[in-house]
């Protein structure tokens, strides 16, 4: 059952240059996504690919320039704020920066309590009990609610952020690089927490990250983003075992592998990501792609399904150009 469906999402940021001219940073340039109930979709890409913007746009924390966002079948992309209020209960977000995501002057209890109060989740008298519950769910002691953010570590603050998101009993949570700012050892704990919560509470996630190693543990499906467009979508294992898009392959080749004997071929991308204000014509990736031809300059490839649920946007997906069959990632041993 489709929980979230995004079609043709675009977000252009206007930038003034010159006397009367306005250029646009095309942060998102036509994105389609589908997340089913209980599913976790990972959204990966380099910095600047537009992943965070996508996450915020889906919740309308950033207003999309164009496109539709269907939540449980209803298009929420253009509804008025008052109506959007109702959906705020169902869709929440966990931010990347644990230091900036909590008001430094508010006690934790107040921060979580705010969520409860806005939507009147529980009656006044039961608020404190509910806060204790939420803290317990994320693995923090009840006394935390009387303390201030600066008394906690990064990982703990992230837990608090998660508790806040859970307070409204959402169905869907956008996790915007939730572990990127944490130490590696803490990352695993938070990922596990998110995973457990998903199972226990039947949540669905849009999990945004730039670290492929992280997404493998928690995401059912992956969408790879480049310069504001999705270039590949498939089940997580499928992506790791059978990547089709050259960009995906390059990303994967950079992920460290435990087995020192695994045969690997590292693909090094040349050049840098182009300026989102003037993306290349045709295929956005062509400036760094080894397989680029004239067709890539003229025709922008569409996301097409090539196998069951595996979509790619590239003109040469079925070609065996030599590099195609290399297994870039050892089979997961866990």
């Amino acid at each position, binding site marked *: 059952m489709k929980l979230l469906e995004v079609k043709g999402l675009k977000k252009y940021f206007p930038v003034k240059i010159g006397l009367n001219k306005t250029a646009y940073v095309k942060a998102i340039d036509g994105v389609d996504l589908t997340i089913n109930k209980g599913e976790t979709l990972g959204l990966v890409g380099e910095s600047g690919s537009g992943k965070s913007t996508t996450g915020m746009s889906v919740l309308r924390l950033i207003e999309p320039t164009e496109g539709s966002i269907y939540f449980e079948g209803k298009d929420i992309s253009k509804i008025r704020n008052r109506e959007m209020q109702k959906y*705020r209960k169902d869709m*929440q977000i966990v*931010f990347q920066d644990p230091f900036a995501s909590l*008001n430094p002057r508010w006690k934790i209890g107040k921060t979580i309590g705010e*969520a409860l109060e806005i*939507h009147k989740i529980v009656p006044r008298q039961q608020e404190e009990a509910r806060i204790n519950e939420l803290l317990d769910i994320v693995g923090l002691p009840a006394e935390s609610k009387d303390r201030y953010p600066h008394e906690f570590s990064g990982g703990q603050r992230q837990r608090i952020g998660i508790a806040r998101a859970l307070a409204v009993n959402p169905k869907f949570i956008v996790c915007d690089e939730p572990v990127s700012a944490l130490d590696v050892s803490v990352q695993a704990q938070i990922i596990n927490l998110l995973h457990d919560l998903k199972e226990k509470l039947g949540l669905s996630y849009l999990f945004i990250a730039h670290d492929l190693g992280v997404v493998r543990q928690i995401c059912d499906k992956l969408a790879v983003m480049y310069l504001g467009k999705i270039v590949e979508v498939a089940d997580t294992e499928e992506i790791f075992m059978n990547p089709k898009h050259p960009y995906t392959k390059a990303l994967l080749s950079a992920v460290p592998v435990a087995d020192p004997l695994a045969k690997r071929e590292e693909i090094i991308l040349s050049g840098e990501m182009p300026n989102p204000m003037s993306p290349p014509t045709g295929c956005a990736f062509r400036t760094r792609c080894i397989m680029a031809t004239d067709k890539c300059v003229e025709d922008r490839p569409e996301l097409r399904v090539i196998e069951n649920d595996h979509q790619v946007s590239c003109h040469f997906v079925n070609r065996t150009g030599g590099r195609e069959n290399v297994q870039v990632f050892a089979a997961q041993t866990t």
Partner: protein
Amino acid sequence: MNKKMMKMLYKRKTAFVGSIIILLVIITALFAPFVAPYDPNLSDLDKRLMPPSWEEDGSQEHLLGTDHLGRDLLSRIIYGTRISLLVGIITVLLSGIFGTVLGLLGGFYRGFIDSFLMRLTEVQLAFPFILLALAIMSVLGPGLRNVILVLSITGWVMYSRLVRGEVLLLRELEYVKAAKALGQKNRKIIFGHILPNVFPTIVVVGTLRVANMIIAEASLTFLGLGVESSIPTWGSMLADGRNYITSAWWVATFPGIAIMLTVLGINLVGDWLRDVLDPRLRTS
């Protein structure tokens, strides 16, 4: 490290001195009737323009001398603290509240409100304060209430600019976005999340502005368009003293020293507050 620590200590000492001064001023203002040796309006024409007690023609009865109407200078200065503090505090409160609210609204909502606010600010700033104040006072007429009104009207700009700048930064912070994601109403976001974090800045500026207001009131009264002459203020004493400066220098000198010390005290405490609460504001 050592230099930095010395600097902190230095500030503590000066702030300490500053707060003592302010405390003295406040106590003097509150207990003026008990502290002052004479009624400030009591005029004794026999004793006009007597020099301070340590001068040749002075007497112990009038420590700092008398003015052209034979009124005791010391008592008048003591009573003057009342007006100065009153004007200073009330105008800062009024203009501060007004300016802060405007700054919050403009900075948070942006768009038309913000542009309008900015233009309004610039229009007001294009007029030199003194002239604007004088012009308005000449229309309204002299009087304590009018002075407070005028100072409040001309003073709000300071706050709104500062607050607006802060709000522009704060509204991008993630906890504000989180509140929005939760569906929190704008009003509650502004007053619950943003205002408390802007508050330290406002406090620092407000404290320092009390000093400006005291001087402003004195200036207006000095030029004849301020508080009515029946109320003893430092400004009017200076205005009187001006006419007698060549023959009786003390009439103008001591009130001025009073102003200077009060302002000094406020500046010292304000500086310290600024260092403690908001290092970003430093211009000195």
